[in-house]
C-alpha cells in the first residue's frame, strides 16, 4: 500500500509536467486547429536558456522568470514568421512545418549546447515528506503547476485580453467583427503556450537531465494526456496529463518493464481515439458540408 501511494504521488508530479505541456498543446489547437509537434523541442530550448542563465550565476527564480519572458517573445516570433504562412494551408503542410521546427530546434540545441547530458539544478530540496510518501521536490513541481493553472484561469476569466483570446479562438469571424485583432490574439496564444511549455521543461529537467532529446518522451505523454482529456478542453488536458502520469508510474511498477513505457503511451492513445475520440471532456466535432 505504501509503495502504491508513493507511486501515485510521484506519478502526480510527472503528471503535472505532462499536464503543463498538454495545456500548451490544447491552447494552440483550440486557437488554430493545429497540433504543434515542436512544442516539446521549444520547451527544451527554453530550458537551455534557463540553464545558461543559472550558470551565469543568475538566481534560480530570476532565471525562471526571465526564461518565461524570453520564451513568450520567442513563441510570438515563431507564430508570426513560421506559422502564419501555413495557417490556412491543408493539414499536411502545417504538420510538416511543425515537424520541421521540431528538427530545427533539436539540431540547434545539439549544435549550440552539444548532446552531452547536463545537470540542471532543482529549486526544491529533495527531502522525504509525510513518512516518505512523497518528496518535497514532487510537491514543489505540483505546486508550481497549480499556481500556473490558477494564474491562467484568472487571466482567461477576468482580464479583457484573456476574454478576447477566448473569443478569437471560439469564433474568429464574430470576434473580428467585434473589433478583436484575431491575428494578434493568435500570436499572444503562441507566446503563452511557449511560456507554459518552458515551465514544463524547467520542472522536468532536474529529473531527466538536460539534453536536446529530453522532451521526446514527455511530448508523447503530453499528447496522450491532451487526447485523453479531449484536445479541445484545457481542464481536460490537465486532468488527462495527471492520469497519464499516474498510469505510467503504476504500469511501470506493477505490470511491465519500464523499457516499454512509450509503447504503453501508444496503446493508450489508440484506445482513447477508438473508444472516445473526443476524450473525457472534449466537445464533439461537428462538420458542416
Amino acid at each position, binding site marked *: 500500500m505504501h509503495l502504491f501511494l508513493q507511486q501515485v504521488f510521484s506519478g502526480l508530479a510527472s503528471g503535472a509536467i505532462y499536464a503543463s505541456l498538454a495545456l500548451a498543446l490544447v491552447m494552440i489547437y483550440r486557437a488554430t486547429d493545429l*497540433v504543434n509537434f515542436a512544442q516539446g523541442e521549444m520547451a527544451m530550448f527554453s530550458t537551455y536558456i534557463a540553464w545558461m542563465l543559472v550558470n551565469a550565476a543568475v538566481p534560480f527564480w530570476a532565471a525562471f522568470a526571465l526564461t518565461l519572458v524570453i520564451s513568450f517573445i520567442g513563441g510570438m516570433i515563431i507564430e508570426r514568421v513560421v506559422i502564419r504562412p501555413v495557417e490556412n494551408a*491543408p493539414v499536411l503542410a502545417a504538420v510538416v512545418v511543425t*515537424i520541421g521546427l521540431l528538427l530545427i530546434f533539436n539540431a540547434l540545441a545539439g549544435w549550440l549546447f552539444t548532446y552531452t547530458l547536463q545537470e540542471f539544478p532543482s529549486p526544491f530540496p529533495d527531502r522525504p515528506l509525510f513518512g516518505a510518501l512523497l518528496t518535497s521536490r514532487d510537491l514543489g513541481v505540483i505546486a508550481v503547476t497549480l499556481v500556473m493553472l490558477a494564474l491562467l484561469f484568472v487571466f482567461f476569466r477576468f482580464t479583457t485580453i484573456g476574454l478576447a483570446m477566448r473569443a478569437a479562438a471560439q469564433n474568429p469571424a464574430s470576434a473580428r467583427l467585434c473589433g478583436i485583432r484575431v491575428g494578434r490574439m493568435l500570436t499572444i496564444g503562441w507566446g503563452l503556450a511557449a511560456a507554459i511549455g518552458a515551465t514544463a521543461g524547467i520542472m522536468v529537467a532536474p529529473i531527466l537531465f538536460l539534453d536536446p532529446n529530453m522532451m521526446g518522451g514527455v511530448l508523447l505523454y503530453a499528447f496522450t494526456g491532451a487526447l485523453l482529456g479531449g484536445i479541445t478542453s484545457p481542464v481536460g488536458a490537465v486532468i488527462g496529463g495527471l492520469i497519464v502520469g499516474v498510469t505510467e508510474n503504476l504500469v511501470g511498477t506493477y505490470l511491465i518493464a519500464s523499457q516499454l513505457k512509450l509503447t504503453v503511451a501508444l496503446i493508450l*492513445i489508440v484506445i482513447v481515439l477508438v473508444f472516445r*475520440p473526443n476524450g473525457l471532456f472534449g466537445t464533439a466535432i461537428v462538420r458542416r458540408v
Partner: protein
Amino acid sequence: MNDGASAIASEKFVADGDARVRIGTWRRFAVVGLIVLAAALPFGLSNYQVFELTQVMIYAIAVLGLNILTGYNGQISLGHGGFFAAGAYTAAVLMHRYGVPYWATLPPAALVGFALGLLFGLPALRFEGPYLALVTLAMAVATPQTLKYFSWTGGNQGLNLAKPAAPPGLGIDRDRWLYLFVFVILLLAIRIAANLLNGRTGRAWMAIRDHPIAAAAMGIDTARYKTLAFGTSTLFTAVAGALSAIVVGFVAPESFSLFLSVSFLVGSAVGGIATIAGGIIGGFFIEFVPNFANDISDAAPWAIYGLAMLLFMYAMPRGVVGSFGPLVAWLRARSGRAAAVSEVSALSTNAKPRQTSQGRLE
C-alpha cells in the same frame, strides 16, 4: 496539396485524350533509354557507389509507399519507419532463424506489411489529419524500444545476416547483383503503383483525399478504400525494409528511430508528395544529404531536414517532380503540338479546389 492533385488530374486527362499517341511514343523511348542506362550504370562505378545507389532505390520504394498514402489518399503518416522496420525484421528473422533464401523473404515481408497496414488503417479511419499524424508519430517513437524488448529480434544487438551471393554463371559480383535485384523490384513497384493510381482504385483514393463526403456520396466505400490505401502503402514500405535488411546485411533497433520516419516524410515532401517519380528524388535526398551534412556537424542532418521541410512547404509545396510536371506540360503546349493540353493545364492552374471547414469547430 490540392494543387498537386490537379496537376495529376490534368496529366491523366492528357494521357486519355487525343495527344496520347504522340506523347506516348516519345515517352516510351525515354523510359526505355533510362532503364537501360540505369541497368548499365553500376558497371562504371565503384563498389561503394553501387551500394549507395542501391540504398537510393530502396528509399525510393519506401517513399513511394508513403506517397500512396499521404499524397494520393491524404492520410498523414509519421510512422512509416515502423513499417519499414517490420519488413526488415521479417526478412532478417526468416533468413537468420529459418534459413530462408533472401529472395523468398520478400513475399512474407509484403504480407506482413500489408496485414499491419490494414490493422493500423482500421483505427486510423476514426482519426483524421493531425490525429493520425500523432498516432503514427507515437508509433515511430515506440518502434526501437519494442524491437529491443523481444529476444527473437536479437534485442539491442540486432541480427547479423550473411550477404547473399550473386547467382553463379552471371559473372557479376555481389554488389552489382543486389543493385540489379533491387532495380527490378523498384521497376515492378513503380509499375504496380502507376497501374493502381491510374485505375479505379487510385481515382477512389484521390476522390476521398479531395472531398471525403462527396466521394462517399458518389458511392465510394470510403472506409474500405482508406484501409486499402494504408495496407498498400505499408506493403511497399515493408518490401523496401526487407530489401534494406538484405542489402545492408544487418538489422538493429536503433536504425529504425524517429529519424527514419521523418526521413521518409522529408523525401516525400522534396520529391513531390503526390507523384510517383518523386520517390526517386526523395531517395537521393535521403541517402546523400545526411551524409554530406554529417561532415559539417552531428546536428546538421536534422537542421537541413528541418529547413528543407519549411522551404519546400513555403516555396514548392508540390515538390520537385510536382512542380516540374506542369512546367513540362506548359512548354509542350507552347510549342503548339497539342492544343488540347494547353486548355486543360490552363483549367487546372485556375481552378484550385480548396478544402475548407475540415474538422473545424463551427
